[in-house]
Structures are given as structure tokens and as C-alpha cells.
């Protein structure tokens, strides 16, 4: 157990921690160097560290920062590096470049060797740096309540078609506009159910009823567990309509 009162105490490292440091390039002291940081996350993080491992997080001078510090847990380290990626903007400190971060907006050449294993954002590491605007949710699939429910959506499509078309008559001039309107209306209706992270494609075919044959078919290359489609058909004496909605999950 390290001596918490001493400012220069050197904690003997567990071999596991050394390995983790090499792999993650984690630096606990980063948070104390950024003027743009609000103090609350830093304080909270400090509290968590103290409670978890008894390692005291102190603000230290630049020369002390080269001593490696054991991260409390790999998971915590992940959290920290994520926070760092969002908050670290300051490039002027040479220390930042030397001690590589797993996710950083401004990579240094030596850093990538150590950080090649971890990519919390899911992006390949060797991408050119770009602004990170959203936090990672670390989700790999849709929630159970948010899947594309084909039956429910098919009912909505059918009722919309029946209501919209009803006794409509086919006309060549209005047919194009009708199909476009219908397509957009169906899409916005399904969008209102607001399935998060689903891309929607609505496809409508409107045609004149006459003595002819028509076949509509579709086939999709997607993930069958998350993506699905719904079809509705409407027909009256003068026209027919086929509406298809595809819902594709977007990671």
C-alpha cells in the first residue's frame, strides 16, 4: 500500500498494471493539466480512484509525471481514455505527445504502436483524426423494445394506404405525384414511431388497374437479426398500390 501522505512515494507496480500501462498508454495525470476541464469530473474521478485502490491522485509537477502510475482497473482506464479523448485539446504540452492516449485527436507517431489494440469508438485507429461530436454508447445492437416490428408497421402501412387512397382514381398526370406523396407520408409516419438508430427506405408503386400482370420482388443483403421490412397492398377498381418499408439498423 502506498504511503498516501508522501508526495514522492513510488508505488511498486503490479506486473499486470505495467502491462496495462504499456498497452493503453494511460496517463492519470492528464486531467490535471487541462485548463479547459471543469473540475467536477476530475474531482469525481479522483474520489473514485481513492476509494477503489487507495492510490492518491495528486497534482504533481511535470517532472514527476514520468513515473508510471497504476490505473485502478482496465475498465476505469477505458473510461478515462474516453474522457480524455473528448476533453484533451491542449497540444502544447510535450508530455501529451510522449505518453500516448488510446483515442486522441492529434496522434503522435510513436503512440499508435501501443494503442493499436484498443478502439472504443469502433473506428480503425489509423484514420485521420476528426472531431468527435458524440459520445460512444458501446452498443452493438438495438434494444429489445426498439426493433423493427414488421407486423405493427404493416398494420400502419395498410391503414394509411386505405385511408389515403380509398376511392381515388388513377390519372397519368397525378400518378407520379401521388406515389411521391405517399412514399414520403409513409416514411414520416414510420419515423414518428421513432425507432432510434434505424434507417428507413419507403418504396411505393402505384399503377393503373388494367388487364395486365405485374410482379414486385425484392431481396436484401443485411443482418437478419436487426433489419426487416413490411409490405402493404391496396387495390380498388381503377388503381393499385404496393408499399414497402425497409428498416435497416445503423451502428
Amino acid at each position, binding site marked *: 500500500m502506498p504511503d498516501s501522505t508522501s508526495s514522492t512515494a513510488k508505488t511498486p507496480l503490479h506486473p499486470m498494471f505495467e502491462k496495462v500501462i504499456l498497452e493503453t498508454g494511460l496517463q492519470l495525470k492528464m486531467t490535471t493539466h487541462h485548463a479547459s476541464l471543469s473540475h467536477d469530473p476530475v474531482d469525481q474521478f479522483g474520489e473514485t480512484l481513492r476509494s477503489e485502490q487507495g492510490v492518491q491522485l495528486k497534482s504533481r509537477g511535470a517532472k514527476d509525471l514520468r513515473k508510471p502510475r497504476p490505473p485502478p482497473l482496465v475498465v476505469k482506464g477505458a473510461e478515462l481514455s474516453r474522457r480524455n479523448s473528448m476533453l484533451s485539446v491542449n497540444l502544447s504540452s510535450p508530455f501529451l505527445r510522449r505518453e500516448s492516449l488510446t483515442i486522441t485527436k492529434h496522434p503522435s507517431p510513436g503512440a499508435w504502436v501501443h494503442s493499436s489494440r484498443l478502439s472504443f469508438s469502433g473506428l480503425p485507429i489509423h484514420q485521420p483524426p476528426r472531431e468527435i461530436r458524440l459520445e460512444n454508447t458501446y452498443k452493438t445492437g438495438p434494444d429489445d423494445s426498439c426493433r423493427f416490428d414488421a407486423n405493427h408497421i404493416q398494420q400502419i402501412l395498410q391503414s394509411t394506404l386505405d385511408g389515403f387512397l380509398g376511392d381515388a382514381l388513377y390519372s397519368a398526370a397525378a400518378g407520379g405525384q401521388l406515389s411521391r406523396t405517399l412514399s414520403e407520408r409513409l416514411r414520416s409516419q414510420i419515423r414518428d414511431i421513432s425507432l432510434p438508430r434505424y434507417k428507413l427506405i419507403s418504396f411505393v408503386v*402505384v399503377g393503373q388497374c388494367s388487364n395486365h400482370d405485374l410482379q414486385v420482388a425484392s431481396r436484401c443483403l443485411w443482418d437478419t437479426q436487426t433489419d426487416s421490412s413490411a409490405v402493404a397492398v391496396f387495390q380498388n377498381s381503377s388503381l393499385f398500390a404496393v408499399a414497402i418499408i425497409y428498416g435497416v439498423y445503423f451502428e
Partner: protein
Amino acid sequence: TAFVVEDISNIIKEAVDTTIGSSPFQTARVNAWTSAVVETCLSQLAKLGKPFKYIVTCIVMQKNGAGLHAASSCFWDNTTDGSCTLRWENKTTYCIVSVFGLGL
């Protein structure tokens, strides 16, 4: 990698030409035609090896003087996703094939 409309368009055209070609419309064969067009398109698209999810739709209709309109509306990311629609015809048949590509 982005959605390249030209390549997809060529793939679709080839698929329909080889499947239907200049055959006259026959009700018995329509099922087989639509399945074949869609499967050929999809397998060619998969061979491209791009990180996309694909949706291929095919409409085969007899030429009878009747009117037909097809429209689609999409909620997606314009920078990564795209679509390509090809209208094909011969003496007795109309064929409309749509390919939607959603970037991963």
C-alpha cells in the same frame, strides 16, 4: 468507400439483360425472372466487397398501355448511402430495378 451509382447501374443492366433479354412476357416465367434478376444483382453487389447493406427491388410489368409509377423516400445519411434505379424495357415487358446501398 462511397456508393458509386455508375458501377451499380452497369451491374443491374447486365443482370436484367442476361435474365430477360428479348423474351416475350410470359406469366409463368415472371416469378422466375424477378427472383433471378434480384439474386444476380445481389450476388454481383456482394462480390464488390464494399461495406454496404443492400436492398434490391425489381418490378416486372407487361406492356399493356397501363400506367405505372414508382417512388421511394429514404431516411438515411446522404454522405454514406445512395440509391440507383434503372428502367429497362423490351417489346413486351417493362422492368424497374432499384438498388439501395446503406453504408456501414
